[in-house]
């Protein structure tokens, strides 16, 4: 049964090696062919070895989520079959090593055995089983073989001998399928017309973010390694010096942010990146940056806590810490991108808002987005506009006062080196000149000033398009979410629309200050608001309730994995039922509900994007 979307999972023990490579190379081959890909993976709790899986979803048009069920499972060991076979849809395929036991006889699933050991032996390349498998997949999906060759060349091109072995392995797998498995490929994945000519990138959220930072003019980074943020630091270690910038690995997260504030004081656009435990440590200095009015971008790639928690798994549980984590009220900005691609554009906004309003900006990515690899359109660099910091003009003749009160709250700033611009960045309450001063007048002026800046930043919502608004705006049901859950939500909404249930969707990307007007308008139009989040408490849900005095339906998942489309869909259905004016049902209250893991896959459905 050919289909035009496809989800393949590769599973095995990472100690044996190659699981991730197999998945990644296959994804790249599909991308090279002009298809869109979206990958997910698990990271074993073990330091080395341990079970891993890599999943690729492929379609001619943009892919929004990892997919709820598998069209094909490539199992390198028995454990993978046991774990994942239940996820394969009826009629799906199991690829397994036929030299290594038999497949289970599950009526509905088509087993394709590959004699991997024999094939590897035949070309005298024991470690070649992964690439043989890839060759087989390429044929199974009728992907262009030349593309596969190019990708393999890129991956292994450094060592000539190894490359040749791998190319041979590719061919071997390809040929085996051609000769032994039914003539028609079970899936034919054809790219969109002209897709191959489009400039498209294959990258992860962290790569997108790092590139965005460089585009945003970031020229200073200090960080401390922490999963899943470390590769931002590593990316910038390689690229920043090439563009004249600096990257320092600091002794801890506190030092990292301290360095960033120093660099920002010196005039550079500066950033750090961490995860939850690191952000917790940074709170004192975030308050200091708010008080001294220093621009800084602080990335938090959220991972599951509390505490060390599950460092390789996703959460959206750092929202409240990001908004409320400092001592006393320290106005600042919190942004959250919604996708791999969005990371690029939003981090640019983060820098611009930080510089324009002279505040720290916390940027909430998450583990899922950060490691996921996706095809995205090449970034449109003409969209990149840099907002400079408001600088004092030494020629103005006016005496410089660093914290001068202004209508916007933003005071022109001097940079070291400017004659007459000397001042102290002061963490004590101060007067306009930055001298410590606790008088009622200055206290009031400055508390208002610092808050005003951030309130004003709310007004950028429209000009910067700091939100996604999708679905059907006339709908009674609204989904108000944030961050990387948007993909599963969009898929669920499309499915609901197909069923005749209308849903409106709003994803603000500025989470603090909350875009008042936007949300007010959105929720005023709905009878029910669902707020899906990957955390225990329903953090955004409660923030919405705090600001708009209205109950929302909090849909929560806190197990370290993204939503499934069907989980969101089920909630839409449930809420739709509740809204039906049947007298019996009306009694039942639409209260908050947590997603509990369902063991069985939901009935098959056709994915749309």
């Amino acid at each position, binding site marked *: 049964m050919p289909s035009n979307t496809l989800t393949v999972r590769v599973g095995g023990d990472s100690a044996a090696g190659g699981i991730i490579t197999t998945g990644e190379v296959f994804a790249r081959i599909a991308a*090279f062919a002009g298809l869109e890909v979206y990958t997910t993976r698990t990271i074993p709790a073990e330091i080395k070895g341990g079970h891993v899986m890599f999943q690729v979803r492929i379609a001619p048009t943009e892919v929004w989520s990892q997919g709820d069920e598998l069209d094909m499972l490539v199992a390198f060991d028995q454990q993978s079959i046991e774990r994942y076979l239940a996820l394969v849809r009826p009629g799906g395929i199991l690829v397994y090593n036929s030299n290594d036991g038999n497949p289970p006889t599950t009526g509905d699933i088509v087993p394709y055995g590959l004699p991997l050991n024999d094939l590897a032996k035949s070309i005298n390349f024991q470690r070649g089983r992964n690439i043989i498998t890839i060759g087989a997949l390429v044929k199974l999906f009728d992907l262009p073989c030349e593309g596969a060759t190019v990708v393999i060349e890129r991956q292994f091109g450094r060592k000539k001998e190894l490359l040749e072995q791998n190319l041979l392995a590719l061919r071997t797998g390809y040929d085996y399928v051609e000769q032994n498995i039914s003539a028609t490929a079970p899936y034919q994945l054809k790219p969109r017309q002209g897709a191959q000519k489009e400039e498209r990138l294959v990258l992860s959220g962290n790569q997108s973010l790092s590139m965005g930072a460089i585009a945003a003019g970031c020229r200073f980074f200090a960080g401390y390694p922490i999963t899943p943020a470390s590769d931002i630091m590593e990316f910038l270690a390689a690229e920043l010096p090439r563009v004249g910038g600096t990257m320092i690995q600091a002794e801890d997260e506190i030092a990292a942010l301290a360095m960033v504030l120093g660099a920002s004081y010196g005039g550079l656009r500066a950033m750090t990146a961490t995860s939850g435990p690191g952000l917790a440590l940074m709170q004192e200095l975030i308050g200091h940056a708010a008080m001294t009015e220093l621009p800084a971008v602080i990335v938090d790639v959220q991972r599951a806590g509390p505490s060390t928690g599950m460092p390789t798994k996703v959460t959206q549980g750092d929202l409240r810490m990001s908004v409320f984590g400092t001592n006393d009220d320290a106005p600042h900005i919190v942004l959250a991108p919604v996708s791999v691609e969005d990371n690029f554009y939003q981090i640019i906004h983060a820098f611009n808002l930080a510089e324009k309003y002279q505040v720290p900006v916390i940027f909430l990515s998450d583990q899922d987005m950060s490691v996921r690899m996706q095809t995205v359109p090449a970034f449109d660099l003409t969209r990149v506009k840099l907002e400079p910091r408001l600088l004092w003009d030494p020629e103005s003749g006016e005496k410089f006062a660093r914290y001068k009160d202004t209508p916007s709250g933003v005071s022109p700033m001097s940079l070291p080196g400017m004659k007459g611009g000397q001042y102290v960045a002061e963490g004590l309450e101060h007067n306009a000149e930055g001298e410590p001063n606790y008088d009622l007048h200055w206290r009031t002026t400055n508390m208002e000033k610092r808050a005003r800046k951030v309130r004003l930043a709310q007004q950028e919502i429209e000009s910067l398009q700091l939100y996604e608004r999708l679905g059907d705006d006339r709908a009674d049901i609204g989904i108000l979410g944030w961050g990387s859950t948007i993909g599963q939500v969009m898929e669920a909404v499309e499915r609901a629309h197909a069923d005749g249930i209308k849903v409106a969707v709003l994803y603000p990307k500025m989470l603090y200050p909350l875009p008042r007007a936007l949300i007010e308008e959105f929720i005023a139009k709905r009878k029910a608001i669902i707020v899906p989040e990957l955390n225990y408490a329903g953090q955004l849900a409660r923030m919405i309730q705090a600001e708009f005095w209205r109950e929302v339906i909090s849909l929560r998942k806190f197990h370290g994995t993204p939503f499934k489309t069907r989980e969101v869909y089920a909630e839409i259905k449930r809420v739709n039922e509740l809204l039906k004016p049947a007298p019996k049902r009306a009694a039942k209250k639409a209260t908050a509900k947590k997603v509990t893991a369902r063991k069985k896959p939901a009935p098959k459905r056709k994915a749309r994007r």
Partner: protein
Amino acid sequence: MVMTLEPPKYIFDPANLTPNDYKSGVPPVWCPGCGDYGVLASFLKAISELRIPREQLAIVSGIGCSSRFPAFVEAYGFHGTHGRALPIAAGIKMARPDLIVVTMGGDGDAFSIGMGHIPHAIRRNMDITYIVMDNEIYGLTKGQPSPTSPIGILQKASPYGTVERPLNPLQLALGCGATWVARGFSSKPKELGELIKAAIQHKGFSLLQVLSPCVTFYDTYDHFKSITKFLPAEHNPRDRTSALKYALDEQTLYMGVFYQEESEAFDAGYAAMRARVTTPNYGVREIMNKYMR
């Protein structure tokens, strides 16, 4: 417009400013008699003699009586959080190698909450000067023992005397491989001024411990006067063993430059590396190309 700052050319000020010209006009909040007044006077003299343009000097501090320092000098200043002066200074220096960056603070700020940053500042050896005003007490919080307080000190927080032995900051710095280490005393202003000048001129990280008594919570004037002595002429500051020997002396607190060595500064080393790898016409476009499918 990408904001890479072209470091303005560093020019010593021709204006020949007097120490007074470096006063910010903000009156110091210290108690009358506090040693920090002496440090301030010596500092103003030193920078005026070095003819550092006021706008090219950045003074970074943490929290404490001594950390109020930046407010009193007509220069760029950064009054940070408790214990974080060094990494803030590091950020400034890396962003703005054209600036003269001086970090200041107290013994608590430096050696207690800030301790984690010192060995790293030392091993990076950035061209930063660190002046620690050591009164062997927490002044601002009203007299708790600090890491340099002598064992057995009686304070409200140690009514039966402390049990822990004090740290010897010079020994510690030498143990971390510091390239410039010295000790001064606020009551020896002339020599202190010279030490400050030398510290600033050292290319790399320089640690200057300044004995600076707290008259209010732990008056050590007489004590310091009785046990301080200048390093003897035969001491060679390039001799690490000799430096260690004098640093270890607990009977006499020696003053002067204990140790000095030329070694590449982080800022210089990083700049050299950057110069090697910087690629003209290399930018986001080129980086993006690496990720083209």
